[in-house]
């Protein structure tokens, strides 16, 4: 067994520097690497590029990094629900690259799986396709999209073992598995870190080969953005 465990978030983020490109898992605030984000705030790394489907809310998730002006560029598919983000974007302080959600996921997966680029129909005929190679297959038009290159991927899983094998819970899975192994170093924080052998190999979502560092996360807030419920009859 090749051991991937590190002591804590500080050792997990060793090597993080200004100007780097990070991938961060999560959809809205669901399945975000809360511990890694808090540590990035503490380290005050700046001039960073973040590849993340969303940009958090004003006071949580990536919103915490935005508030401190640590982010130079955001690569996302949807950035509503964040006033500070909108302000920085419209004033030109923040560079924003909006990418269709499926393309964003696939650009991560392509990096993970060793594809330099791929064709997708998403965005054909729109401003997203401007300046990109277009090619026809079987009568339909496709846009060439390139795999991302990132320095670190910050991933949140539910359970993980010492070997870096991961299991996700519910829709907190989202972009997290696609980002594992898609950056030079993949750092995973988990709610439950267990010894090797405790997870059933049949039930692993992401094998440990895609993970360089894994640590036991702490103090998860797991905020709910839209608490919708129904009344009991």
């Amino acid at each position, binding site marked *: 067994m090749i051991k991937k465990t590190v002591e804590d978030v500080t050792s997990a983020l060793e090597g993080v520097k200004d100007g780097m490109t990070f991938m961060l898992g999560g959809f809205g605030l669901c399945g975000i690497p809360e511990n890694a984000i808090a540590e990035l705030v503490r380290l005050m790394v700046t001039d960073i590029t973040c590849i993340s489907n969303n940009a958090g809310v004003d006071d949580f998730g990536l919103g915490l990094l935005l508030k401190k002006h640590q982010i130079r560029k955001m690569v996302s598919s949807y950035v509503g629900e964040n006033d500070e983000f909108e302000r920085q974007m*419209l004033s030109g302080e923040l560079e924003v690259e909006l990418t*269709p959600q499926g393309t964003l996921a696939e650009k991560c997966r392509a990096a993970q799986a060793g594809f330099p680029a791929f064709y*997708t129909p998403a965005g054909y005929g*729109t401003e997203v396709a401007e300046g990109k190679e277009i090619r026809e297959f079987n009568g339909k038009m496709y846009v060439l999209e390139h795999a991302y290159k990132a320095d670190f991927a910050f991933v949140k899983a539910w359970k993980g073992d010492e070997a870096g094998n991961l299991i996700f819970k519910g829709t907190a899975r989202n*972009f997290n598995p*696609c980002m594992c192994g898609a950056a030079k170093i993949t750092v995973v924080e988990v709610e439950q870190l267990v010894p090797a052998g405790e997870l059933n190999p049949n039930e692993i979502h992401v094998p440990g080969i895609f993970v360089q560092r894994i640590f036991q996360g702490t103090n998860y807030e797991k905020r709910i953005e839209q608490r919708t*419920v129904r009344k009991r009859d």
Partner: protein
Amino acid sequence: MLDKNGIAKRIAKEVKDGYYVNLGIGIPTLVANFVRDDISVEFQSENGVLGMGPFPFEGEEDADIINAGKQTITTLPGASFFDSATSFGMIRGKHVDLTILGAMEVAENGDIANWKIPGKMVKGMGGAMDLVASAENIIVAMMHTNRAGASKLLKRCSLPLTGVGCVKKIVTNLAVLEVTPDGFLLLERAPGVSVEEIEKATEGTLVADGDIPEMAI
């Protein structure tokens, strides 16, 4: 004239037995409330769930189980979770039978705009561009006119496009329309709405042949 629930109710009739359906945010989300319960349908949410159920009972919300609108949800027996690349593989690979989404503008050539108002609102396209580029069966759910009273069914879209030539059917508060080479073909009128009223609210070419039936909801 229909309200948002009325639009959802009419669209629910388009949902057939055995369909996998992707619902967008807003009016489309309401469609799930009106689907007949004697047919088998699974709702897909692009953030990674098939087999979405209703909102949870108070106290049973789980931060790890949400829909694309970031609302807490439940799952039904037979549900599954998956990652975002798999989710869009379902969409791109045409495994989803019906896509229902909102729009700011639809043009008579089937173009759709729903993600950006330059200089004003830039929230992003989310999964909309992937959905409209691949889905073969797309229904747009929207009000016929915007808040300023201007038509949302146009000759050409004025806003940045989400997709080209992809919309087939539109259900608004006033009408059910089909996108055809000749323009918006009027299929049904909302209860109490005349063809003239629909013509007035439609900037694009409206084709109204013969007697147009009122929607049965």
